[in-house]
């Protein structure tokens, strides 16, 4: 049977390298072609997983623990599918975007290719050391992309991002070293049966180190300091990639470790602590988003807040009845998917508005409602998901999380979710409201090419339609 797993990693590696050899600014067309291929590969993999459950692939034919295994289960397939689905429209968008911003194009395509290879490899890996390598590949590619624009602001942001991500992966690697010390293996498959509730304290320390490192990379409050300048300062397609996907990669790993590898040793106290940090992120991030004067900074702080929702999953799913945990788990993963699609659309729309008006402050987008209604419409649709209003994917996620919170009688998370939802409505409408204001006749306005607007709408619609087809995603997620 044809196995798409290695190809999902090889394809972006190959096109990125070829794009590099081809030279600065080149490789867009090749990327689009390969991305279409990757999307089909991910779809094939999803079908195989639904039909036959978890799939393993022994690289080099050795098999774990001597060799490295690739593994595709429901969660990793959902992430792979999400990644390819977001990147393909963004690639079209980027091709149109960089026509007007040619000076920051340079090596965008190869960097994006390696970024994608890193994510696909990360989602497929079942080896904690191999995952470390993919994390570094991911981090360096992301930093390179942030620095593309140049200038003091973005370079500073890139530097801070690099230091944060290095600190995070170092903590992770130390955890891996400790795990190897205790068990003599780095394979998830080999480690899982060995870790029991009575595991030595070293394992708890390793778990704490790995999770902390990944939380830093996911920009969970209060480790979010690096995110807004990095995501807000990068070119729009890059911001979209970073906010929609890159932080989700480290979050995916947290899920993997928490619910898979370390499931026997995680405690309810730790889960409540993660939830509290998530709540802090929701409130503080939303509050700061509301205070921003620049469009992309607002969207970036919105990411800080939305990351918080993801972490509510832990107190709702840890130590609760199977039914509640299931509902929270599904809600958390749906939130990952919904936020990914919506945030990609939102950053792309922000980039389009800034391109059209030539101004990056929120006050500068007056009149967008009449000049580029399609883009504004897409922004609003994405906003619906961010606010968690029906019938969007964000709503479906919120529904499940709220249900889990009610069923487990943890009403404090309900308050957080409700208040967070209202705050997010406040900052989304802060933008929409401005867009409806009349604009002075003298304001210059640049018409946008179609390929800049339609991919945004596609992403936003996808985040909305997710609310109606959530059951399909959940059936893939539950495939075992």
């Amino acid at each position, binding site marked *: 049977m044809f196995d798409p797993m290695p190809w999902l990693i090889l394809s972006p590696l190959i096109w990125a390298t070829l794009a590099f050899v081809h030279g600065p600014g080149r490789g867009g067309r090749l990327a689009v072609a390969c991305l279409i291929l990757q999307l089909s590969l991910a779809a094939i993999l999803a079908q195989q997983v639904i039909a036959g459950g978890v799939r393993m692939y022994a690289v080099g034919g050795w098999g774990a623990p001597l060799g490295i295994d690739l593994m595709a289960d429901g969660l990793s397939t959902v992430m792979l599918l999400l990644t390819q689905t977001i990147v393909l429209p963004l690639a079209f968008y980027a091709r149109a975007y960089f026509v007007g911003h040619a000076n920051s194009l340079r090596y965008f395509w190869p960097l994006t290719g390696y970024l994608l290879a890193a994510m696909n490899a990360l989602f497929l890996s079942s080896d904690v050391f191999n995952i470390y390598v993919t994390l570094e590949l991911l981090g360096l590619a992301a930093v390179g992309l942030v620095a593309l624009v140049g200038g003091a602001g973005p370079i500073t942001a890139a530097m801070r991002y690099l230091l944060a991500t290095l600190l995070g992966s170092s903590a992770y690697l130390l955890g891996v070293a400790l795990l190897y010390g205790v068990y003599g293996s780095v394979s998830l498959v080999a480690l899982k049966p060995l870790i029991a509730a009575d595991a030595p304290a070293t394992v708890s320390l390793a778990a704490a180190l790995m999770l902390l490192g990944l939380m830093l990379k996911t920009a969970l409050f209060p480790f979010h300091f690096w995110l807004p300048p990095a995501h807000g300062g990068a070119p729009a397609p890059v911001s979209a990639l970073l906010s929609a996907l890159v932080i989700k990669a480290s979050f995916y790993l947290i899920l993997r470790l928490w619910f898979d590898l370390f499931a026997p040793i995680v405690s309810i106290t730790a889960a409540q602590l993660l939830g509290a940090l998530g709540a802090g992120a929701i409130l503080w991030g939303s509050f700061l988003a509301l205070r921003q004067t620049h469009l992309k900074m607002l969207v970036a702080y919105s990411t800080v807040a939305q990351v918080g929702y993801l972490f509510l999953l832990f107190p709702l799913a840890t130590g609760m009845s199977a039914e509640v945990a299931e509902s929270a788990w599904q809600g958390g993963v749906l939130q990952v998917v919904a936020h990914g699609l919506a945030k990609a659309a939102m950053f792309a729309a922000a980039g389009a508005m800034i391109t059209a008006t030539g101004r990056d402050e929120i006050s500068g987008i007056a009149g967008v409602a009449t000049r580029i209604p399609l883009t504004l419409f897409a922004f609003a649709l994405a906003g619906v998901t961010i606010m968690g209003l029906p019938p969007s994917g964000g709503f*479906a996620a919120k529904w499940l999380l709220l249900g889990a919170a009610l069923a487990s009688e943890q009403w404090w998370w309900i308050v957080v979710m409700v208040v967070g939802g209202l705050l997010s409505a406040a900052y989304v409408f802060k933008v929409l409201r401005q867009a409806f204001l009349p604009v002075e006749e003298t304001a210059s306005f640049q018409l946008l090419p179609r390929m800049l607007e339609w991919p945004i709408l596609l992403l936003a619609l996808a985040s909305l339609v997710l609310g*109606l087809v959530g059951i399909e995603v959940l059936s893939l997620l539950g495939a075992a």
Partner: protein
Amino acid sequence: MNFNETLPLLVLLSSLLPGLIIFALPDERHGLRSLINMVGSTLQLLLIVYMLRGVMHGEEYIYHFTILPGLDLVFKADALAMLFVPLSAALWFLTTLYAIGYLEGSPHRNRFFGFFSLCVTATIGVAMAGNLFTFFVFYELLTLSTYPLVVHRGTEQAMRAGQVYLTYTLGGGALLLVGIVWLYGLAGQVEFTHGGVLAVLWPEYTSQLRVIFFLLIAGLGVKAALVPLHGWLPLAMVAPAPVSALLHAVAVVKAGVFGIVRVVYDVYGVEFSQSLHLLMPLAVMASVTIIWGSLRALFQDDLKRRLAYSTISQVSYIALGVAIFGPMATVGGVVHLVHQGIMKITLFFCAGNYAETLGVHKISEMDGVGRRMPWTTAAFTVGAFGMIGLPPLAGFISKWYLGLGALEAQMPWVIAILLASSLLNAAYFLPVLYRAWFQPRTEAWPEEQIPMQNGRETAWLLLVPPLATAVATMLVGLFASSTLSPLTWAKMIAAREYLYWMP
């Protein structure tokens, strides 16, 4: 999927698709846009007439769609839905006609009509929702699709009104959501069912059910403008007249109060609600709203603001009818859903005509408008008399049944409320009529935009809709006992909610 299942979807699509197409059209394509609007609207009416026939003959129109495990979107055309759906569709048709005339020459009309269609789609979705989840989906969609209409003019005042509107409705939506999720957690996925479905949870979950009821009513009360949740409504007056007309008569406030009807009758069940002692607080709240709205209306000089406060008061008749235990009050409340809609839209159309034709916005400017615009003023008079409750107009029927219901439930104080409210209604409407008909005009009109032509007081498109609804106000009163009247339909609904009662 057979035809009966697709029919509710088709009704939704007949207003959704025109809306989406209109968004895509350039702003200058007036003719095409109006055509699409009218085709969609007419098609929708035809489909609804077909469904009405079916429902009378016992057909069922139910559509299920699963979106998450244990979470279905359900559309169901039951008797209650088929009271609200034809009202929305018919008034949408008239309001669209009116809006085409009203907005002639103003900018961004594609945006306006696009959201207008979405707003009607949301209302019809609310009406046909077969469970609370579906109801909530369209309830929030209604919020989102009406916001651009409220801020349509883009003025600072409109923006502020929009912000207040959102704060109230989204806040209410959040409470409603928590209530619904909680209820789903307790009872699982429950469809709207005559007589309610929650009685099985008694007595174990009584206190939880009370809290949920409070959350649901608070969430719905925002849109239904129950005091003290009504603050957004007078501000939302800045919207163009057709929007106000639709917001007040059918869409937003009706969605809220319709939700209350659904929760009391088809979720909790009216008998179960009574046994939990939930109805009395609701009745008190509705009564306070009725009196408070009328009192505030007295002191407004702005015509649309006076009408807005009148809406706050009148919509609570429906809530009151629901909250009085007994079939007669149910008939009165449910039928007022239709009656208030027809009357209030007439009044708003007329207010819009005064503003658009003569630039008259305030009551103090209305001296002598009756002679300048006799037809419009006649329609306004019919609407106002209806509101006051003069027989044989629509409002009288509602109040009559509410009064009967109050007696039946042995709540004589309600009669006092009804009387006081009618007096107040008269007190704030009659001076307007007096000025319009009997005060002579001493100065020029503030801003005469549409001159008198061949004895026609204003544009055709502005005149026909209020006349049509005024005639309807008379007809539903005069022929209240005919088999096709809203009253008969309301009796049928009451008969299904009170299992022991024969009309």
